[in-house]
């Protein structure tokens, strides 16, 4: 190998937590060659981001201690005085972060945030810097760049902001770009655009990239070599091909087995559990196939017909309605008991609003909703309480959906007591049972939410939803915030519960690969409408609608040998905002197969 651009040897980082030093990165060494892309992959708490921050020396010096060597252009970065380090940051090494929404200063103009780097590092005059900023914005494919210099970050979408951030990071032609989860917060089609952009720019500029991610699909897509981190250790390093073909460390194998792979279910028609890896031996345990849980002979548990939910946008002195967000527009669907229907689409497509409208957390404008034969929209207060007993919701963020000051036992018992299903004493017993059902132990009922990990909390949320013995569960991005291995466990749990209790799931997700695992049927939403609905196998293997095809093409495939060269359009996700007098067109659907419909343009 040629001389590396960046060489990390024996890097260890510790943080001071409550007076004690805790080691979070332990003896990590790896090199990055010229024009090479190295991915550091791991789950939350693995120390991958801390490694990146250590390289840039961005950790606060009072609370952290970094030892080892980081050689870059003949210098050990850890020994440099701060001033010299500042002339490397943003100049020789560029860095981009996960959250494009917060990386830019909201009160400064985009132009100023770009030019300050050019003025500072490259000694340009203000007018030179402005001209260069336009060139940079054009380089990251921002349309009509010149006119956008005077705009503020709030006028840019998430994907566009990440482009601006990349433009800033690349302003001084760095030798190395450190990208810390740069696409995690973005929609899948936008993620594909940004990955494509990073790859193209890397070719154009001839720089190296250190890519930090938790997503094996992204790793397979972008990196030449991969470092797998687990609890602060680099447990495995190798070319990406090698790691995907024959991982040696049990953790890498566990990680890979838990990675949902789009296309791994070709030919299967039922959901499939994730394989579990025995962490001691590294052996894959065989997957128990799921039983056929769908009750086809009884009526549907959920029936939604022509649901419409719109939000008025009011403006001006008289608060007149100038337009509406058509969040949900003429959505019809049916769900049988024991069946999983996934609602997929990108942010703003109305999938969550659909879920919320179904149990009237958001008011629908028109349409009919029946849960177990009971009309939801016309239900009175007490009837609604009864209906909500049968339809429970699980939310995305297990950290925010549990009250931090209520013991989880009480949180689970609350709905049981409120709905009068049992007395306080009996409810306590039920709580123990429920906790065991979701794979926790009854003795944990006395704990507070902060004593649990993210995955355990989501189990608690599931236990709380199960407390009322519902027939329908609406899971709104319930596994999106979880690490891959935990995600796999929670999905397996949901499949177990479906087998045991015949639950119907309305599974709302943007994650196509997870959807492929868990669903019987899939509905694709775009701008508030269902553009395609049908059996999972049909929709995934034979997508009909253009948007479905685009969505499928954008999902990264966790297989480096199937790396695709694709042309991604630079389209933004459109807004469902319409003028006040807008009348939605009549939609017609065509049948592509049994139960498989798609919208005609």
């Amino acid at each position: 190998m040629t001389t590396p651009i960046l060489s990390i040897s024996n890097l260890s980082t510790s943080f001071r937590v409550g007076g004690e030093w805790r080691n979070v990165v332990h003896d990590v060494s790896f090199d990055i060659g010229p024009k090479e892309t190295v991915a550091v992959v791991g789950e939350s708490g693995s120390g991958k981001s801390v490694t990146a921050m250590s390289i840039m020396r961005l950790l606060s010096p009072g609370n952290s201690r970094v030892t080892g060597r980081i050689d870059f252009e003949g210098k050990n970065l850890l020994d440099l005085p701060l001033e010299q380090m500042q002339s490397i940051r943003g100049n020789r090494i560029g860095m981009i972060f996960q959250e494009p929404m917060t990386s830019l200063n909201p009160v400064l103009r985009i132009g100023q945030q770009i030019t300050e780097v050019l003025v500072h590092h490259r000694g340009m005059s203000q007018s030179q810097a402005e001209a260069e900023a336009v060139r940079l914005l054009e380089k990251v494919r921002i349309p009509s760049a010149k006119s956008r210099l005077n705009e503020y970050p709030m006028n840019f979408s998430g994907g566009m902001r990440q482009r601006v951030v990349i433009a800033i990071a690349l302003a001084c032609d760095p030798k190395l770009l450190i990208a810390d989860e740069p696409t995690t917060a973005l929609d899948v089609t936008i993620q594909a655009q940004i990955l494509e952009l990073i790859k193209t720019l890397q070719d154009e500029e001839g720089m190296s990239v250190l890519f930090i991610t938790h997503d094996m699909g992204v790793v397979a897509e972008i990196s030449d070599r991969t470092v797998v981190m687990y609890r602060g250790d680099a447990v495995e390093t190798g070319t990406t091909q090698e790691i995907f073909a024959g991982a040696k460390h049990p953790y890498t194998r566990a990680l890979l087995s838990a990675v949902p792979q789009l296309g791994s279910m070709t030919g299967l028609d039922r959901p499939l559990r994730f394989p579990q890896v025995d962490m001691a031996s590294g052996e894959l345990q065989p997957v128990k196939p799921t039983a056929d849980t769908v009750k086809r002979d009884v009526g549907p548990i959920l029936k939604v017909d022509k649901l419409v939910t719109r939000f008025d946008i009011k403006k001006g002195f008289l608060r007149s309605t100038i337009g509406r967000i058509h969040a949900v527009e003429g959505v019809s669907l049916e769900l049988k008991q024991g069946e999983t229907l996934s609602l997929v689409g990108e942010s703003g497509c109305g999938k969550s609003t659909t879920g919320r409208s179904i149990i009237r957390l958001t008011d629908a404008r028109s349409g009919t909703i029946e849960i177990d034969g009971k009309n939801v929209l016309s239900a009175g207060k007490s009837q609604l309480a009864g209906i909500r007993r049968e339809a429970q919701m699980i939310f995305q963020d297990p950290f925010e959906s549990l009250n931090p000051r209520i013991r989880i036992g009480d949180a689970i018992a609350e709905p049981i007591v409120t709905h009068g299903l049992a007395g306080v004493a009996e409810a306590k017993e039920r709580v123990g049972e429920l906790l065991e059902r979701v794979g926790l132990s009854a003795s944990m009922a006395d704990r507070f939410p902060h004593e649990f990990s993210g995955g355990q909390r989501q189990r608690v949320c599931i236990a709380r939803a199960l407390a009322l013995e519902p027939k329908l569960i609406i899971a709104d991005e319930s596994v999106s915030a979880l690490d891959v291995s935990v995600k796999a466990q929670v999905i397996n749990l949901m499949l177990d519960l479906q087998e045991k209790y015949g639950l119907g799931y309305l599974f709302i997700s943007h994650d196509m690969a997870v959807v492929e695992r868990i669903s019987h049927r899939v509905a694709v939403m775009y701008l508030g409408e269902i553009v395609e609905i049908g059996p999972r196998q049909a929709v995934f293997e034979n997508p009909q609608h253009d948007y479905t095809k685009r969505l499928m093409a954008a999902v990264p495939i966790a297989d480096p040998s199937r790396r695709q060269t694709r042309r991604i359009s630079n389209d933004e996700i459109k807004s469902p905002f319409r003028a006040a007098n807008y009348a939605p067109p009549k939609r017609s659907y065509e049948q592509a197969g049994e139960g498989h419909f798609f919208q005609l343009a």
Partner: protein
Amino acid sequence: MSGYLLSRSIQTVLTLLVMSVLVFVGLYLVGNPVDVLLSPTATPAERLQVIQSFGLDKPVWEQYGLFLTRALSGDLGNSFVFNQPALTLILNRMPATLELAFVALLIGLVFGIPLGIYAGLKPKSLVSKSVMTFSILGFSLPTFWIGLVMVMLFSVKLGWLPASGRGDTVPIFGVPLSLFTLDGLSHLLLPAFNLALFKISLIIRLTRAGVLETMQLDFVRFARAKGLPERRIVRVHVLKNTLIPLITVIGLELGSLIAFAVVTETIFAWPGMGKLIIDAIAVLDRPVILAYLMITVVMFSIINLLVDILYSIVDPRVRLEGNS
């Protein structure tokens, strides 16, 4: 923008209406000014004459109606005591109070913001801790007590500064100000500092909290990753974000400085509006009280409007809208 200004003006007029009704009814319930103003030995005929001259013989709603029609033409009535237009009385006193308030605010900003930034950037240093201790004192010690101590120390013991009154004034654009004469300045210093102490403490705490919070944000980390020197990060990236919450509070505080500087004005015998209103309340001089409160409401509205406009300049995410 014009829609915004219009709706703001309407709000102000509504507030004025509600306030005037409350004050009218309130004062009516509290007591009869004639009882306070007239000596107990006055004959019933004298009494009747005074009552009639004040218009107090009419039912209260009629008095209110009369007040409203006059107010529309800019006449807020004559003071019961001085027999001069209430508005003129107040406007004569206003420059003194405004001067005091603005100087106090300026002192608050000049000391508060830099100290607050320092305390936010280096929260663990000894200096920051001393600054924070000082700010607790500034919060908790009563203004009148500090005022008295200041008079004792600087006027009585050291004899550096005069203890009371307003010094020489020079007219600036027709407004008599003491800010530009040496004598006036020396008279202004003590009361202004006395008023400013609480504001300094408040601004220190707010700035520190803002800086501490902003320093944790992603864009500061990104600014560091851009290789910008710490100085620029604080001056450009952090400061502007810290100012946003500060502006609102400073606006409200300015209003309260102007309207309720009573205690300080009393201690330092400052000839401002505060003293006038206290005297007016004591004798139930309704026209003066009403005029004073109306001016206060208008002033608060103007300050709030300025704050909102300033806010939208500093923070591009805020848009001025009809009803916000």
